């Protein structure tokens, strides 16, 4: 299979700060690569470079078989970009937005109008087609933005956090649209902080943190890196977390992770239900109100925690009592 995107040794510095410290990745034609990482990891910088918005300081990249450094113009004709913020003109209607972008892709008047009409229908925007985008909900704007990036049938599509800020229903709808695109053969590079999103949409994943690739592979391969199951429990009062942690420490097959914000303890274990029974026995000797307890297979949240020592969505080192909550809005439970 040929690669639609090839990135080799990409380096980008902003003053003193190294945003990318030599990133390599490839995306096979017709597949989805999930680029994962916390805020500030460098995901958006990769997308900005690949969509010709930024020049790298070192390294090279090819998109759709074209060299970014020397053939940027041809690259632009073959890509679509949906940035983190819905880049739609609020004062234009949905249809006008799409027709404008079509014209700027040099599709011609009639084809721009036809493409706009069919994309509005595909993204459930036909009823709102002649209303200014100002009146659209967040989910509608995002859909319009994605539609705009598709108007010229790009070979490669860059989606930078396409569902950030969307409510759960809009997020599900967006996932369905993206799955349809993949079905039609579009190559997609998708960045996300939501591990469930990557798990669901991406064929392969690259995890970056502080500008470096720290892991790559399929979801299953990444999960295998983290190893076995986990025993997870939540206590009613945060002060009880320490006692519970101490009681279960002898069962742990590695580092325990206590999150004070969510009052949750995660213990890597082996032995399945026997271990669970042992844990319950030990907990009966502790004055603590356990709200729920269970065994769980690792998900990508655990992958991230194991690889970086911090959760995917906070960007802060784990274990810090003041740490931003490890919200797992997208993570499967």
């Amino acid at each position: 299979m040929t690669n639609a995107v090839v990135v080799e040794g990409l380096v980008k510095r902003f003053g003193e700060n190294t945003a990318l410290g030599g990133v390599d990745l490839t995306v096979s034609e017709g597949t989805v690569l999930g680029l994962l990482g916390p805020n500030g990891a460098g995901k958006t910088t990769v997308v900005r470079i690949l969509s010709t918005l930024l020049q790298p300081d070192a390294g090279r990249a090819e998109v759709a078989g074209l060299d970014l450094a020397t053939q940027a113009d041809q690259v632009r004709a073959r890509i679509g970009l949906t940035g983190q913020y819905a880049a739609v003109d609020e004062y234009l209607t949905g249809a006008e937005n799409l027709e404008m972008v079509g014209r700027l892709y040099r599709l011609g008047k009639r084809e721009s109008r036809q493409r706009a009409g069919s994309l509005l229908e595909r993204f459930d925007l036909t009823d709102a087609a002649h209303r200014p985008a100002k009146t659209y909900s967040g989910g509608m704007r995002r859909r319009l933005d994605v539609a705009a990036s598709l108007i010229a049938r790009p070979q490669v599509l860059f989606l930078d956090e396409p569902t950030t800020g969307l409510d759960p229903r809009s997020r599900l709808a967006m996932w369905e649209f993206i799955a349809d695109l993949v079905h039609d053969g579009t190559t997609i590079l998708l960045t996300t902080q939501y591990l469930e999103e990557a798990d669901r949409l991406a064929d392969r994943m690259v995890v970056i943190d502080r500008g470096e690739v720290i892991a790559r592979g399929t979801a299953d391969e990444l999960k295998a890196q983290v190893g076995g199951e986990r025993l997870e429990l939540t206590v009613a009062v945060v002060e009880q977390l320490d006692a519970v942690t101490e009681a279960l420490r002898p069962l742990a097959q590695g580092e325990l992770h206590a999150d004070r914000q969510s009052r949750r303890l995660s213990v890597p274990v082996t032995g399945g239900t026997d271990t669970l029974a042992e844990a319950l026995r030990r907990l009966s000797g502790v004055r603590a109100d356990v709200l729920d307890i269970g065994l769980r297979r690792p998900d990508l949240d655990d992958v991230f925690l194991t690889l970086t020592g911090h959760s995917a969505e906070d960007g802060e080192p784990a274990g810090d009592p003041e740490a931003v909550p490890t919200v797992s809005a997208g993570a499967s439970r």
Partner: protein
Amino acid sequence: MSTLAETVSDSAVITRRNLIKVKRVPDLIVFATLSPIMFVVLFRYIFGGAINLPPGITYAEFLLPGIFAQTVVFGSTVTGASIAEDLQKGLIDRFRSLPMSRSAVLIGRTVADLGLNVISITVMALTGLAVGWRIHSSIAEAIGGFLVLLVFAFAISWLMALVGLLVRTPEVVNNASFIVIFPLTFASNAFVPLETFPSWLRGFAEWNPVSTVVQASRELFGNVPAGAPVPDAWSLQHPALYTVLWTVVILAVFVPLSVRAYLRTASR
């Protein structure tokens, strides 16, 4: 399509987009029409009685070219704020990722703002005619008078485009340009004759291109009384030439600088 034809076609798409906004945002039209009307009427009747002019000219005739210049120069600052807004909203990122002409976003912007200035100046001219302003020259000269104003404002638009790309916040663009544009338009001959200025300020005002824009359009509209004394400064003796020189220099410097900044910018 040739590159030039592509640039023209892309610029037309962007100009149209910007003008649709003018149509849909009432604030812009109010700013572009009502406030010039207000300025014409207020200045005409408030300062009209207090300012001593050479014989042979009324304050309305003296004032209108000044108000034209002030309004179009202020109007061209819209360029900077609009570009900063597009940058903030990620639209510039989108445009830069498209296979479109690299200067079309800025051309489309400055041309649309030129259009807005044409609307303003038309409204002001009609208001002016209602309060006593008259054109005493030929049609060709009068058209020349309007062109001097519009072309100079178009050049300022390109300067403001660079400011918008560098400053990136519409509010800051507005405040910053106010601090520069306000003294530039008031320390000129737009509202009062330069003879009343203290000498240090007069020197500045005589070479201030806003003064020469005003002087050039006054001459072209026939709003300078016959027998008025010839100004001392070379700039005011040849106001149209001096203004065109400024316009050419501003465009020659700021068109490439703005396009370069556009190609390097990205929203944060």
